[in-house]
């Protein structure tokens, strides 16, 4: 085994009422990829924040390359060769790629007192080359994809460690794949594997599959403690899940036993719906209680199609009918009134009013039913909210908890509760389990099955192909804007992912 580059010993961090980290030992060796897993609240992020100096531990020692250090702040950590790529990104959005790469370290590029763009450009190309990004350096970061942003952050950290001559930097990737397409994810991991020769990588992810496939070693955390440290090649996903959750996870992950055959009535009908340059004329139906999964690469047109169904985009041709009634294209309010729900991929900005309480969010679409004598009745409001909070098992101190204070899983459950409480006929779910831990995922699967039983038709786009296959009753495969294949996925007779992949690519 190679030498330890970073050693934390007996790290403890307390917050009022909670022990976030309880005497955790944590070692990163040179040239390895270390997978770090645990449920939300297990202490992963606290540990990482200590690693980069965002917070200071109450107890414990921090040694870097053998020497004890006190990391003052993230900038200090980066100079010492320890950096983190945050889930929500930490690039300044209005600055260009190049400006972000060198932010606060421009001094070396001075030429007669002014920054030399040429020198910066050369360095930027070299830095981005290590992560195989060829991008227009002047593009503002806000206009780039999450994948490019991640790579810029990685490139920045690597460049900094070179600048400060730090051997074997430690890169922390926090849930890097939640915002990536499958291709981008594969590329990320191939780059990560290449980077192993010069760096160590800590990979945090809820997707155990990629952790097992990519990591050399896996560290499992639960309730602020390190519960296991295993070699990845000996690890199996069920065992890891069991250690994370603390109990055996249902073998039937996707609750196939609850899958019901579609009803007779047609809920949604698409006739010749197209959007120029994005997808070509499409025809399909969704029946009552049917779960349709849309799969395809980015650029296949599936996202735009879903947005058209939800009324958020206007198709160029064709008609969308709900229960036989034609909807005005491009009108989200009419879609909602007609009974089409939409759970967007970015619930933080689109799906949920984070500054409002759970009750307010849950009741948002049904306020008319909660009125007594023309005014909203607080009692009815509370009753309705409590019912759905219990039904959807939203874990929160009270209905008046602000949504911003909820975990990702509970936020997602609140969004679903909102649609459940309003009598919808069709629900479009855009990556419903993204950024959600194992326990909460199971809850969401349960809710999806429950919705199907009440007759709601669904169109889903999932994080993994396994999830798509497991949840749906029928799969529509899109490629380059065309519907190329349709696969039935009846319970217990599901196709395998490899059967599907050939039609996708």
């Amino acid at each position, binding site marked *: 085994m190679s030498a330890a580059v970073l050693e934390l010993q007996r790290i403890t961090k307390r917050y009022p009422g909670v022990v976030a980290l309880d005497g955790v030992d944590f070692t990163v060796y040179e040239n390895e990829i270390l997978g770090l897993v645990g449920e939300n609240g297990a202490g992963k992020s606290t540990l990482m924040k200590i690693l980069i100096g965002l917070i200071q531990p109450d107890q414990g020692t921090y040694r870097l390359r053998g020497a004890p250090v006190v990391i003052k702040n993230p900038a200090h950590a980066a100079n010492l060769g320890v950096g983190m790529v945050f889930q929500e990104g930490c690039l300044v959005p209005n*600055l260009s790629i190049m400006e972000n790469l060198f932010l606060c370290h421009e001094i070396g590029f001075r030429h007669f007192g002014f920054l030399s763009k040429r020198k910066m450009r050369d360095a930027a190309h070299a830095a981005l080359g290590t992560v*195989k990004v060829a991008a*227009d350096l*002047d593009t503002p970061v806000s206009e780039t994809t999450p994948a490019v942003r991640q790579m810029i952050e990685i490139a920045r950290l690597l460049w900094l460690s070179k600048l400060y001559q730090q051997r074997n930097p430690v890169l922390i990737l926090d849930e890097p794949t939640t915002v990536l397409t499958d*291709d981008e994810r594969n590329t990320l991991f191939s780059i990560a594997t290449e980077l192993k020769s010069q760096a160590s990588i800590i990979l945090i992810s809820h997707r155990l599959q990629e952790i097992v496939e990519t990591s050399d070693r896996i560290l499992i955390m639960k309730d602020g403690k390190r519960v296991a440290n295993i070699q990845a090649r000996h690890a199996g996903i069920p065992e890891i899940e069991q250690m994370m959750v603390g109990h055996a996870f249902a073998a039937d992950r996707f609750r196939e036993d609850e899958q019901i055959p579609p009803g007779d009535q047609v809920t949604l009908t698409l006739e010749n719906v197209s959007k120029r340059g994005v997808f070509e004329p499409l025809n399909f139906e969704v029946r009552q209680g049917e779960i349709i999964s849309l799969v395809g690469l980015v650029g296949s047109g599936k996202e735009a199609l879903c947005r058209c169904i939800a009324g958020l985009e206007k198709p160029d041709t064709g008609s969308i009918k709900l229960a036989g009634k034609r909807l005005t294209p491009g009108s989200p309010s009419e879609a909602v009134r007609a009974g089409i729900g939409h759970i967007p991929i970015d619930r933080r900005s689109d799906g949920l009013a984070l500054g409002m309480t759970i009750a307010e969010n849950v009741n948002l679409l049904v306020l008319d039913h909660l009125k007594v004598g023309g005014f909203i009745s607080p009692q009815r409001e509370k009753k309705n909210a409590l019912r759905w909070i219990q039904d959807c098992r939203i874990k929160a101190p009270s209905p008046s908890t602000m949504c911003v204070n909820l975990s990702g899983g509970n936020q997602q459950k609140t969004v679903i509760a909102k649609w459940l409480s309003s009598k919808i006929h069709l629900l479009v779910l855009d990556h419903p389990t993204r950024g959600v831990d194992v326990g909460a995922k199971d809850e969401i699967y349960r809710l999806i099955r429950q919705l199907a039983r009440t007759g709601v038709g669904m169109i889903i786009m999932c994080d993994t192909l396994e999830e798509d296959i497991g949840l749906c009753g029928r799969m529509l495969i899109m490629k380059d804007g065309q519907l190329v294949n349709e696969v039935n996925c009846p319970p217990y007779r599901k196709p395998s992912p490899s059967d599907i992949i050939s039609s996708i690519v």
Partner: protein
Amino acid sequence: MPNTVTSMLPHRSTSWLSTSATKGRKWFQRSGISGQLLALIIVMGIFTIGTRGKYLSLVNLQVILSLAAIPAIIAIGLHQVVVLGAIDLSVEGVVAFCVVIVGFLAHNKFNANDVGLWIIPITAGVGGGAGVINGLLNTKLKIPSFISTLGMSWVLWGLAVFVSKGQTIPLLNNPLRAVVNGYVLGIPNLAIIAFLIFAIIQLVQDRTRFGRYLYAIGGDEVLSAQAGVKVHQTKIFVFGIAGVLYGLAALFLAVKLDSAQAITGNNLLFPAVTAVAVGGVALTGGIGGAKNAALGALIVTALNDGLILLDVNPYAQQAVNGAVLVVAVALTIDRKKLGFIK
């Protein structure tokens, strides 16, 4: 492909992510002033037709340039504060105070003082000092800039009126008068000075660390601090530069009008904020540079000049003014949508 950034499978290319903007249009799109140039051209076009060409006469172009200079200098100072995501409402107070200082220290009718050309560093320094205090109040005492600068404006305004007893102090034989009122090759000197200030600030924004820090803070203050940006230092500097420019504007105004009175500072804030907004500087911070501020000042001045030249009823001028400004902003809003808006 819907996005400009395309993703490809790794085996197809070593570069798996690349952006595909064509170089030619790029500058214009990214310049951030395309909408403003368009607005200026439209405004000038309408007035040129309306005045049968008189609007484009040399004399009038000289008038526009000379009248735009001082608002531009103020707007260039102000816009950097706006880029930070803050606001500076101290313009009128700082100008009033600096003007009164000019009145008392330059050769004047009331006392025997005459500091000669030293008046330039003095007013710049006093203005800069006021700006630095604005910055300190904002960063160290954590007072929102909206309040601290408004307070500063009132304090300085009060001081200016108190010191001058509200009187007008006539200046005598100011050595700068020839410079301020002169022309080089038909271009008003004040416009040249404003242009130089614009060029320096624009260069600093594009090509120095300070410029990066300015936009980084405007984009996301917390992230910038984490990356190591010296947030407080940068903010204080920005407020300081703004103060220096207000001080210079005050000096030029006093010399131009050959007299110093506290009320010279009146009615300067609103046009400056308008110029900054019309120029395309996002009032939420992070977007827009000196070029936007300068162009904004030019648009506002060209508009006012045109309304007078067209002899638009003064009762209606204000309304026309407002309407055209809204249109100008509407033309620029599309570009902003692409950018980051806090």
